[in-house]
């Protein structure tokens, strides 16, 4: 197509090549640097303080945790898990509901719930090869409808469920609110630690290697003897696990469990993931980029708030910035000849 004619005119000057490589490898960190400079100009006194930076990361920490899980799915070439909101809501409700049995049981229950839904998704999509978007949408409808039905649209509160055992309830609330050394929020540490683990899993383990090949080319992976069905399945289970962690944290933050928790996380996670340089076709990007994507979103709303734009103007600007950054990434990949999309 027109790509091929353009490839002939491909300008190979070293400077340009270096720029394109930089943009395709770590475009999102270039963007973060740019945003840091802009922010310093906009609000010189407040922006580059320790507290503000911690705030920016803390706001995105929950999104980041969930996004790490969805990245496994996107990386395996299966677009997105639209059932993330229902996974988060379900595991949040389970966590609150079984809180009287103790905090460890509650946490375990939430993670198990996430894994269970993820396993069903993985079976249908990995093994039976259902379309990921449609299947996860169906699961989202089904689970959220059933939750609403089971709880007749009501929220449940930990202190009401656990009764007199306030010590457990306080511990549950504290999950989100703990600050290590009095300054660094626990959830930021959780997110960064999980990102590190995911990065190691992706690049240092056998499963990671299989996932990388599967994401790049599922047919080639199958021909080279990789059990692609199991690989995709595990990706969805991991996605459910991280969704469960997200649901637990969210119900700890909002001090309740409800069917509507996690609404909007389906598309905001994919925004962060794609910003971070993971392409929808799979097999490209890494977890450091995803964290970068989350931080970019946080910085962007931080700066736009300093400029004085409201939530709605921010929606407008963010939509365009999203398309722009993704365009930069795909454009540089294409010019480097790595992608022909």
């Amino acid at each position, binding site marked *: 197509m027109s790509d091929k004619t353009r490839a002939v005119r491909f300008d190979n000057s070293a400077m340009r090549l270096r720029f394109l490589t930089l943009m395709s490898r770590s475009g999102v960190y270039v963007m973060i640097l740019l945003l840091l400079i802009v922010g310093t100009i906009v609000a010189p006194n407040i922006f580059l303080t320790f507290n503000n930076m911690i705030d920016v990361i803390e706001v995105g920490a929950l999104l980041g945790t969930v996004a790490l899980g969805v990245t496994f799915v996107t990386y395996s070439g299966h677009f997105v898990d639209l059932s993330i909101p229902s996974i988060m809501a379900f595991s949040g409700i389970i966590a609150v509901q079984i809180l009287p049995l103790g905090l460890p049981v509650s946490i375990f229950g939430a993670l198990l719930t996430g894994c269970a839904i993820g396993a069903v998704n993985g079976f249908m999509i990995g093994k039976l090869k*259902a*379309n990921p978007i449609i299947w996860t949408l169906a699961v989202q409808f089904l689970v959220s409808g059933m939750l609403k039905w089971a709880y007749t649209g009501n929220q449940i509160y930990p202190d009401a469920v656990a009764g007199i055992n306030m010590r457990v309830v306080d511990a549950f609330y504290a999950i989100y609110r703990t600050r290590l050394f009095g300054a660094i929020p626990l959830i930021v540490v959780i997110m960064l630690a999980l990102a590190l683990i995911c990065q190691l899993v992706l690049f240092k383990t056998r499963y990671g290697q299989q996932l990388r090949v599967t994401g790049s080319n599922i047919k080639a992976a199958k021909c080279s003897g990789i059990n692609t069905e199991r690989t995709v399945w595990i990706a969805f289970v991991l996605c459910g696990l991280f969704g469960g962690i997200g649901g637990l944290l969210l119900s700890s933050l909002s001090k309740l469990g409800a069917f509507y928790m996690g609404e909007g996380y389906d*598309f905001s996670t994919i925004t962060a993931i794609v910003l971070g340089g993971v392409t929808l076709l799979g097999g490209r990007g890494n977890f450091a980029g995803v964290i970068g994507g989350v931080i970019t979103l946080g910085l962007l709303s931080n700066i736009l708030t300093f400029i004085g734009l409201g939530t709605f103007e921010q929606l407008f600007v963010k*939509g365009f910035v999203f*398309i722009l950054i993704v365009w930069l990434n795909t454009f540089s990949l294409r010019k480097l000849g790595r992608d022909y999309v």
Partner: protein
Amino acid sequence: MSNTSIGPAAAADRRTRVKSIKWSNVINENRIYIMFAIVFITMAIIAPNFLNLFNIANILKGATLCAIVSVGFTVVLISGYLDLSVGSMINLGAVVVIAVGNKTGLVPGILAAVAAGMIGGLVNGLFVTKGKIHAFIVTLGMLSTVKGLLYMITGSASINIRDFAIVNYMESKVLWIFTPKVLITLALVVLIALLLRKTRAGRVFFLMGGNRETAWFAGYNTDRYALFAFMISAGMAAIGGILFALSTGTAVPNMGEKGLNPQLLVIAATIIGGTSMNGGKGSVVKSAFAVLTLTMLFNGFSCLGSGYEVQIAASGLILAAIVSYEAYSSYKADLRRGQRMKLLSQLDN
């Protein structure tokens, strides 16, 4: 399996699947009509007050918005793309027709709203074809951008129509049980169905969806047709929004975010109607029928006295059942394909 089925392998894949399960294919092709009949008969028997003219008129009226949007959405899916921005385009049409209509009169308002939707579709299409960004991402960005724009225009409040004559007209039964809204919807469905079946553009949409490179080699300017498809999708969504706003007399920038989201319903209905996410296969009439079936199901549930949550769960269950059935049959076809390589090579010749 990769999601964009490009190349001869995918075509052969589809061909073998069709040949190996012939009888069930006939049922599968017409499943939406069968489902329609089943839902109609079941509800007529078990749901009180379901089978009377007033309720049936209500069902038709309720299906109009999603039916119109699903028609446009089907065109985009057939040409092998995806349009997630329809949710915002509905609201764009609704807000623009009332905001402009209040100032300049109804006809310029309607024209402005349709134009606004089409411009949105044009921007989508330009980003996808010229910027070569994945349609999923572009339309997701547009969803947020247009939503922000609408909040800015309306100040996040609902805006009301000034002249209620049009509202009365839209709600009046001009022909038996049909309101103008229903008649316009029928006309649009027939129009787009004819466009797909009888014109060159329609044939190119199918060809593009099946294999974009082949369409390009056949001498069609695929980029231009992609632009056209996106404009149809966004334009139809805007028209749906216009009709909805004119018959309720009010427009809000966030319609459908509470309760049953029309956008997700449209995606579900289009797939239930048999349109393929991989492109190249589908029918707007079946999509409209799927919307009608789901609306009828919801209506029947509310006749039985159950709320939104049961409706959402039921639509999820139906969607899940259909996806499982499709996945299972293609899984079995895959298994069979691995075992009889020689037979298959004969089939391909």
